Structure formats: structure tokens, C-alpha cells
């Protein structure tokens, strides 16, 4: 199975992880991107993620579909949260199930790299000094 989702709700890792259950798979690699309390030397109080939802869903699904076709991974699930997030909240989760660990790790890393590069989602950092700024790297 492959699935990409955007959600305004807190990401439920345990529920997502169960989607990867498969008796043929001996390896599951997963990644959580988490809101941390600093970036580029500034203290961050919270983050807002905004998406171009229609295009983001298509780009995200294209990433997970392509990598499952091109690899030994059997299941890839990626969920990105949008809206206002606090420190410690999970912004993005990627889970990959494969027969062996090599494919699980490589595909998991590939998916998060591609999501950060391609999917139209933007982060607005709200700083301790009450200023904020959209990140356009």
C-alpha cells in the first residue's frame, strides 16, 4: 500500500504504523519530523504549515507511488500535518515496510527528502520576540 495524506489533526503514529503490518516484511523504518524550539539560532515558539492542498496531495502521492514501483519497499505511508503546531508536535511522519532493512531505510530517507523538496507546503516560524516569517529556502 502507498498513501500520502495531509491532516489538520495530530498525527497518530500508532495508527499509521498498523497500516504497515505485513507478515512478509521483516523491516520497518520510520521518520518523524518534529517541531523543535530553535532554527537558525532563533527561538521558535510555534509553527504554522500552509499547503496548496490539491497539488500537495498529487505530488505527495506521486512520490510514494514512484518509490514503491522502483524499490523493494512494499508499503509506504507519509502524512504531513498542516495548521498551527506547537514545539514537540509531529509535522511529518514517514513509514516504510520492506522484507529487508536496506530498502526500508533508503526508501524512508528518499521519501522525506523528496517531500521537503517538492511538495507545496510552507512553514511560518513564530519566534519568541513575536515576529514571524515564512520560510522560502
Amino acid at each position, binding site marked *: 500500500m502507498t498513501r500520502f495524506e495531509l491532516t489538520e489533526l495530530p498525527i497518530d503514529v500508532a495508527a499509521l504504523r498498523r497500516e504497515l503490518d505485513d507478515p512478509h516484511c521483516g523491516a520497518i523504518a520510520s521518520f518523524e519530523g518534529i517541531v523543535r524550539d530553535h532554527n537558525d539560532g532563533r527561538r521558535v515558539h510555534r509553527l504554522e504549515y500552509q499547503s*496548496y492542498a490539491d*497539488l500537495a496531495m498529487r505530488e505527495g502521492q506521486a512520490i510514494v507511488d514512484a518509490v514503491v514501483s522502483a524499490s523493494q519497499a512494499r508499503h509506504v505511508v507519509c502524512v504531513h500535518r498542516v495548521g498551527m503546531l506547537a514545539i514537540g508536535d509531529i509535522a511529518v511522519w514517514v513509514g516504510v515496510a520492506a522484507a529487508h532493512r536496506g530498502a526500508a531505510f533508503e526508501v524512508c530517507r528518499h521519501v522525506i527528502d523528496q517531500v521537503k523538496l517538492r511538495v507545496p507546503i510552507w512553514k511560518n516560524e513564530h519566534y519568541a520576540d513575536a515576529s514571524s516569517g515564512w520560510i522560502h529556502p
Partner: protein
Amino acid sequence: MKVRLCYFASLRDAAGTATEEIEIGHVDAVRLYEAAAERHGFSLPRSRLRLVVNGEIVDWSRPLQAEDEVVFLPPVSGG
């Protein structure tokens, strides 16, 4: 002709709106962006934006059509 513009992230904040409909007398997306940048004070140079028309990423040289939905896509920062 009329086109619909959708803004995201810093462009949305600068424009003060998520969408606007405007009348243009040409079909040039570059000119459309430059006029919007001047009107709203966008600071991102066009070279850092991608053009999306009706949900598809397209080249800036593609001629616009009436009723097109146009997005100037700023560099993304998800994850």
C-alpha cells in the same frame, strides 16, 4: 479576459488575500506576476517561483487563457 490568482505563504500575507480575480489584456504569465509583485510589494524574484496553471506546473512561457487559475509557487519548506 479574467484570470483567478491564488496566493500561498509569504505572497498570501503580502497580498492580504488568498485569491483575487483580475482582468488582463494579455496572455503573459511573467507580466502577470510582475504586475502583482508591484501591486502587492512581493519581494521574491520571479526566478525563485514556479508557475502553476489549473493545477499543473507549467513553463512561464505558456500563454494564459480566460478563466485560468494561476498560482505563483514560492520555494517550499515542508517537513
